[in-house]
């Protein structure tokens, strides 16, 4: 009955190998989740022993890439937490509308569902034409999917419900065409999105934004790494810019707390009030 699990010490050996050989740094992620993913992959790929798992990672760069892509969590949805999107509509977009040119950064965007959701908001507010959205992730595989703008058709009912709950008034199906198992989102929604690789652990700031959205990424990081990444976000925001986090993430008790003020609602959106 008993399962053959890899210990936390063995997992750190693998993470050090990945850092030294391939330059991806997972050593400051919260261990419990990484542990679980590393063990899961070990079982799925049916390695007879830890030594063979480790050897494969060290000696086979293609497998190492699989390892990197599998130990990070890529789950995402369109209009997840509808009340969050409602808050963007009513409290953030009216401010963005006052700028001649809008720059947004989706950090840890995964396959792009969240980015397309936001593009729909901008479209409906008639702001998309003057916006550019940088959508970044550590994982090249998910970015490739994001560029295609094709999501599973079977999800559309749920997404349409989320969209309406977020205050959407259009017919959601007008934003895509159904194509076998996929919904292909309209070209005009994708035109202003630039998908590109960026590693929050090792890469720096690359622009100044009025809005940064980074949801369900920080939960995977240690407290120390969270602080560092939040400083990166703070440095990449204009004065009075907005920072939006996932529904279980917070800016409270972090290195940048004093610079930000949370919006007056229960959503996880903060405004940078101090340079």
């Amino acid at each position: 009955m008993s399962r053959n699990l890899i210990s936390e010490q063995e997992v750190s050996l693998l993470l050090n190998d990945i850092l030294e050989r391939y330059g991806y740094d997972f050593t400051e992620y919260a261990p419990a989740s990484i542990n679980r993913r590393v063990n899961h992959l070990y079982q799925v790929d049916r390695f007879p022993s830890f030594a063979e798992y480790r050897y494969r990672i060290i000696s086979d760069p293609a497998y190492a890439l699989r390892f990197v892509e599998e130990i990070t969590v890529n789950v995402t949805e369109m209009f997840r937490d509808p009340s969050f999107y409602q808050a963007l509509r009513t409290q953030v977009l009216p401010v963005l509308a006052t700028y001649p040119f809008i720059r947004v950064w989706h950090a840890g965007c995964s396959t792009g569902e969240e980015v397309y959701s936001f593009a729909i908001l901008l479209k409906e507010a008639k702001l998309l034409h003057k916006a550019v959205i940088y959508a970044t992730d550590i994982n090249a595989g998910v970015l490739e999917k994001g560029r295609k703008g094709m999501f599973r058709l079977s999800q559309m009912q749920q997404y349409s419900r989320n969209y309406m709950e977020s205050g959407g008034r259009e017919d959601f199906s007008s934003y895509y065409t159904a194509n076998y198992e996929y919904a292909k989102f309209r070209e005009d929604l994708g035109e202003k999105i630039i998908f590109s690789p960026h590693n929050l652990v090792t890469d720096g700031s690359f622009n100044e934004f009025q809005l940064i959205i980074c949801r369900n990424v920080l939960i995977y990081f240690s407290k120390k790494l969270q602080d560092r990444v939040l400083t990166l976000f703070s440095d990449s925001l204009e004065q009075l810019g907005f920072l939006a986090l996932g529904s279980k993430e917070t800016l409270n008790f972090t290195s940048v707390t004093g610079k930000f003020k949370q919006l007056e609602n229960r959503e996880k959106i903060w405004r940078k009030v101090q340079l």
Partner: protein
Amino acid sequence: MTTAPYLIVIGGSAGGLHPILTLLPGLVASLPAAILIVLHRQSHYESVLTDLLSAKSALPVKEASEKEPLLPATIYIAPADYHLLIETDHTFSLDDSEKVNFSRPSIDVTFTSAALAYGSRMTALLLSGANTDGTEGLIDVHDAGGTTAVQDPATADSDYMPRQAILHAPVDIILQPSEMAAFINRMAEV
């Protein structure tokens, strides 16, 4: 701040709320353990659930937040739509990866991660439910030296989950809902 030296994880699905409401009023405030409740449910009733359990308990009840240390004599509820993990430094982590056994939070995920963090200093208690979540986690808890307990299927609204566990996992003790508080309180005496 010292974190809880012991941990009790309670997992329930359909019919799991009833035994929880039965055991909560009986818990003593000197408990050296943190209590963690993983309950399958609709995401809409969040605050209602915390309020409901608070009303039944002398111990503080709160939703677990990520990076928060586990404190003794405190009852934590796994938030809806995330898996709840325990770090070896006795803090919580959240993870929004795929559902396990059609569930997020999954009882298996929390049992297994708690077993790695707490070893023999934990007890897992599996309650009523209509799926197979929890069984694999109980095996890991047992392997790590922890104690495994299951609600008596005869007292469960849905007996499938406790029956599966008894069939496939090493279960140390089978409990009636009325015996659960006393069973947990015994930890206060060690």
